[in-house]
């Protein structure tokens, strides 16, 4: 590959030089300059140290270590967890336009209890503020701005005084399962495998 590139560059330059010294063909200066520049460029790229060549490894005798999962894999795996426990993908993908509220309510129980279980199992979620909603609070300068959102007309400087509308949530700990079994061809897990009932 590399030598072909260099060879074709030299050839192009040679043809170019021949055109200058053997003016049998009528070539414009512009075309000559262009082809010369092109030849130099080809040689330059050809000689430039390329990326390290990958030598094909002989297949390992044992199972190769699984490739580290991509960041998307963690997210898809969590979505799969919500599908498995709370049927979240089923619920979101279903057309509920005409479904009566009673039927929707029954499904919502399945989704709710499953989501609740998953949240309780993998996170420790607590409110950011312990005061009840409606309490008037004062935030002094240097308050945790990421954990508080100010609504309405906000003066330039703290202290900010306002009524608590939502106490916020924070995950104090996160202990998500570690994803296994991803491959080159399947970089993230399936959300829900297709199911087949085998009859006896």
């Amino acid at each position, binding site marked *: 590959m590399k030598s072909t590139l260099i060879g074709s560059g030299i050839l192009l330059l040679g043809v170019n030089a021949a055109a200058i010294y053997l003016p049998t063909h009528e070539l414009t200066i512009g075309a000559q300059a262009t082809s010369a520049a092109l030849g130099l460029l080809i040689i330059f790229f050809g000689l430039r140290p390329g990326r390290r060549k990958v030598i094909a490894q002989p297949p390992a005798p*044992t*199972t190769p270590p*699984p490739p580290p999962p991509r960041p998307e894999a963690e997210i898809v*795996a969590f979505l*799969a*967890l919500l599908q*498995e426990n709370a*049927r979240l993908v*089923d*619920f979101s*993908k*279903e057309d*509920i336009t005409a*479904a009566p509220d*009673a*039927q*929707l*309510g*029954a*499904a919502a*129980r*399945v*989704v709710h*209890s499953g989501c609740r279980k998953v949240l309780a199992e993998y996170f*420790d979620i607590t409110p950011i503020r312990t005061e009840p909603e409606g309490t008037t609070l004062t935030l002094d300068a240097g308050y945790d701005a990421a954990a508080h959102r100010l609504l309405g007309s906000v003066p330039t400087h703290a202290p900010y005084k306002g009524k608590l509308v939502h106490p916020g949530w924070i995950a*104090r*700990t996160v*202990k*998500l*399962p*570690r*994803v*296994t*079994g*991803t*491959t080159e061809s*399947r970089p993230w*897990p399936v959300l*829900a*495998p297709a*199911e087949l009932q085998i009859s006896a």
Partner: protein
Amino acid sequence: MAGPCTRRVADIRVILSTQLPSAANNQPPAMSTHLGLDLGTSNCAIAIATGTAPPETLPVTQILSANGIGEKELLPSAIYLPAPDEISSDSPRLPWQESPPAMFTGSFARDRGELQPDRLVVSAKSWLCHPHVDRRGPILPWASTSVEQKLSPLDVSRDLLLHLLSSLQSSHAGINLQNAVLTVPASFDEAARGLTLEAANSAGLSDVILLEEPQAAFYAWLENQGSDWRKQVQSGDLLLVCDVGGGTADFSLIAVTGKSGTLSLERVAVGEHLLLGGDNMDLALAHDVSESLSSSGTAPLDEWQFLALIQAIRSAKESLLSDPSLNDVPIAIPSRSRRLVATTLSTTLTREQVDRIALDGFFPLVEPDEMPLHRRAGGLRESGLPYAPDPAISKHLARFLFRAKANILSSPQLLEAIGADKLSDPSSLLIPDAVLFNGGVFNASPFRHRVLGQLGRWAGRTVRELEGARPDHAVALGAAVYARLRATGHGVRIKSGTARSYYIGMESSAMAVPGRRPATKALCVAPQGMEEGTTHMIAGQEFLLYTGEPSEFRFFQSEVRAGDFVGQILPDTSDLEESAKLQVEIPSPSGHNSGEEVPVHLESTITELGNLELHLAHAPTGERWKLAFNVRLQ
């Protein structure tokens, strides 16, 4: 959901120690650690006690789903054996596994196996104490027609222990496995205990010590109470440990004796093995709800909907039991179709159903002489686990307390320890003064109140609850406490010894009568309460041992004959329960012909590990033979 606060604190610690496996966490612990292992019927757990700190449970690394591994406090005692073609190279595997395993243990196994019941092994521990099956033979999953390579109950116990230990060693490299304590039900007989020890040995625990689960729960309570425990009990008290888990119920009585200030504890009675627990309640409620659904015109539930129903019932039941203001809880039963909204069925679980089925069905208020049914009405029964035919736990409790009274009356020693006034009670039952509850069922206060109410009714006085029980993790925690106690010698120890009396069958010496085999007498080789590390020589008695040809040995046991002594001969075996039978050929000692009877002396030993061994010694040649009690019943 007892004590979310403590649980949260524990979780934070857990994340630090296992989710970030840094070098610091992999160093051998500087302080001495003591290990407790709870190999439960439904769930397993590990706890350690480090230095003098309170014991704590350690999360177990396991496969959680087809896509992920993680840590959980409990390892479900489930093994799933997938079809070989179901496993691919990207199937989940644990950090210590080189390739995807041929079988899975824990959470994933339980959840996946539920959808393939023919390939799921659960309750293997109950098979381990089932005397009528080959407990070393590949019989599990029981009655499975699709699994080719089945497992023995012994294999399952070993594999669950191996999983626990691999997880422990990957988070705590170099941890001391010496003198770990492994719990068994108090109702396990010597054979089941021996098999448990064997499983532990083959999992790499060479010198494990067995502890009865109700005692472990009691040790956890003692540890939790600190020195305050003496304020809750007094000399002369009789304490019931009432342990009802997912699939089993286990009772023990502990007597408090001694003078004030130096109280001592002795376990004086253990119950029979009962396959009855919280899972039975969920199943009974699910059947009731499913029947009322189909009587209202809904199509019968398929097996997957029924599984979803049981899960929904479990949490609805817990809501009703923990919140007295609720009268009913709506239940949603999803199908497996992706059309969730269109196919989910809706029904309710009412307080009336929970009261009638869970409370009055399993804990009915009964008279002291109402004993549980011994067998179902059917003449022919499908082979399987010997589930308790009578679901009334109150009746099983009555039977336990009745037998406990008989047991104590048989032993002058126990009678003196407990005090004669306890037994002068006209009641046929031995009623405890206080109860320590253990097992998931007793997280719900209505069940605790019902048991206390029932005992109070039988006794005609108030029976109190020992405060501060932790029904979910007490067994593993108590095992770690006991491991530390044994190593350091600090702490209160429950005097226990063997839970039953053990006997060996002996052919009586009688004149030959045509058509009649000589009667079998029973020789007591280990009385109830015989302590670990003791040996009894049956002095002054010689027995004749048949050698050189196969002969049969029969073993018996009793929970109600605490008063028997080593060497005592019972004229017949009608009072006893046959636990094992062994066909064996004992080689003739040198200088004797095969088929010859040689005189031997008997010596019984309870090893330091709590295993019963019987030695037959032939004095003239100095030869000895050992018969272990963990033999199988043919």
